[in-house]
């Protein structure tokens, strides 16, 4: 919905990759409990920044 909004100028590929990554992180954590909640928030934030910056 938001991806199609030109005003926000989101890259659909980046968005989809991020969505997949976050889903995976959450799934893995539901299974492995690798991260505490705050650590996982930081990890997701890092992933967003890395992908948005194109790294």
């Amino acid at each position, binding site marked *: *919905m*938001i*991806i199609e909004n030109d*005003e*926000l*100028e*989101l890259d659909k590929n*980046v*968005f989809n990759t*991020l*969505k*997949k*990554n*976050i*889903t*995976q992180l*959450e*799934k*893995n*954590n*539901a*299974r*492995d*409990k690798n991260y505490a*909640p705050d650590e*996982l*928030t930081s990890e*997701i*934030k890092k992933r*967003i*920044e890395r*992908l*948005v*910056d194109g790294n």
Partner: protein
Amino acid sequence: MKIESISLQNFRQYIGKQEINFSTDDDKKVTVLVGDNTAGKTTLIRAFEWCLYRKNGFKDPILLNKDVAQSLEVNESQDVIVTVVLTNKEFRDDELCEVKYKIERKQSYICTGKTYDEKNQLQSVITESGQMRGSIHRLNSDGQTISEVESGLVNKVIDGILPRDLSDYFFVTGERVGSITDDADLKESVRGLMGIDVLENAKDHLKKIVNGYNSALKKSGNVDVEKAQSTKETKQKQLEGIEKQIEELKDTIAYYENEKVECAAELKKNQSAIDDQKRREQLEKIIKELESDTVSGKAGVVSAFSSPTAYAFFMRPLKKKIIELMDKYEKDIETVPDMTQTSIDYLINVRKVCICGTHISEGSAAHQCLLLERKKMPPENIGSIAKRFKNYTTTYIDSADGYFGAIDSQYKSYRATRKQLGYKREEKQDLDKNIGKDDVDIKKLNDDYKEAVQKLETKSQELRKLYEQQGSIKKEISNCDKTIAQFLKSDKVNSKLKNYLMYAQALYTEFNDEYMQKESSVRKDLELMVNSVFNKVYHGTRTIMINTKYQVQYLEKLDESDGLKAVKNLSFISGLIELAKESMEESDLVEVTEFPLVIDAPFSNIDGTHIKNISTIIPATADQVIIAVMKEHWEAAEKDMEQYVGKKYVIKKDVDSVGKEKETSTHVLDLEV
């Protein structure tokens, strides 16, 4: 997830170390373990439960094999170990790969002394030594350890693979097949299995990130943006409150929907009792009317007996007798009415002319006639009076002519009313007995049903209002977002942060929408799925309902056989698995891609039709089936299941030196398939 093997060391009657490898083939997915009663079939299921979930379902909690325990010297110890190796398809570094887990549970036991039992035999006194330990190793395909799960996380990781709350649905002992729908609230586990918890956690984390970026943005100096930001924060708090209320209301609505359905089903089931109660109410009304009619009818009869006509009626025989007697003397009393001897004397002596105009001279025929007539008249004769009395009596008798008919009809009517009253009272007594026997408070049921309908209406209205408010607040937030986005677009200082924020915001919205949608639909979807499986194997008209705790129930509360219970519960398991798989395909949210079913004695107390049904459901339900059965039950099911059998074992009790089966040790023997 598929179970590759289980290894048991001194676990109950499984003496020494024994390993069973299960079929993991996609087509030949069934492993059969055939064994007599008490050979160790249920113990095997319990070994899985102990290893994975630390459940100890035995009356005697000592798990150490009795023969081993007996052989221990004082202060000597021995371990009970159960190891389960399973493979799970998981995403690792964005790749779907097969991960092997070795899950081990260990408990040490120590012999603290020796004592004589009631048979005067020396027995070891055994107690646990140290804590129960669990470990999980991730293995590569060669069985080498890649990593070990931190000990504090062992149980959480197992829960992540297959939740403990749902274990009853995947590790099913014989007695549980029929009673699997216990009081456990499965909501959270089903949410986990469907991936809803993943969505919820993702949206919560993203929200924190969005809030963090918003705080970090330098918006000072721009009044409009600061105002938009402040409004947005306020509105978001309101939105959270409303969304919480919506969720609570949805639960309430689901509760009343459930209540409504249950009351309707109960009312339907008790239709005859309802009819009886209605009839009783009608009868109570009729009896009241009849009682009133009886009282008035009785009063009418009593009043009729007290009336003057009654006297006339009851005097009729006497008066008729009088008239009969008087008729005998008719000629003697026949005279000119109302004339007296004085009148005749006046005609003879004074007037000398009769009324008819004839002259009366002494000795003439007219004179003689008048003298004769004079003799019948008063005062010398009462003939005239008697004549008058007769006429009056006749009239009096005639007046009672209709009386008998009237009182007869009145009395008959009174009797008929009383008879009717008696019948109705008897009918009511029978109904009272019936209604009392059922002991169903129909009025309360009706009231509960009406209350549920009314509450549903009220709560649905409240929900609609909340949705309207939610929509309106979302619109306001969206307007604020636009203002902020416009500012960020033109602002060079925050160029990096604004990009992060936009993605984080868009991701939050995406996860939140998906979470809301899934949360509201999963129970209905599960219900549809379970009914779809159930209808394939059950040819009756029953419908399965999933309540707010995700427990499985019939819509109609009717009796069910053990076989039907098993079919219903296995339909639930099947539906749950199907929905989880469907959910996984749709959204990539569910980690578990394969589901095992470990089931003991599913055919006990079940007739042939249901054995066939269950034999059809079980292989269709799960990706792997481990089934423990008695020989005769397997013979009944084999025809329908043999095409799926990949491995087959016999669980056999050991025999002692004289060939007698031992209760304390058993072995699993591999059979060729």
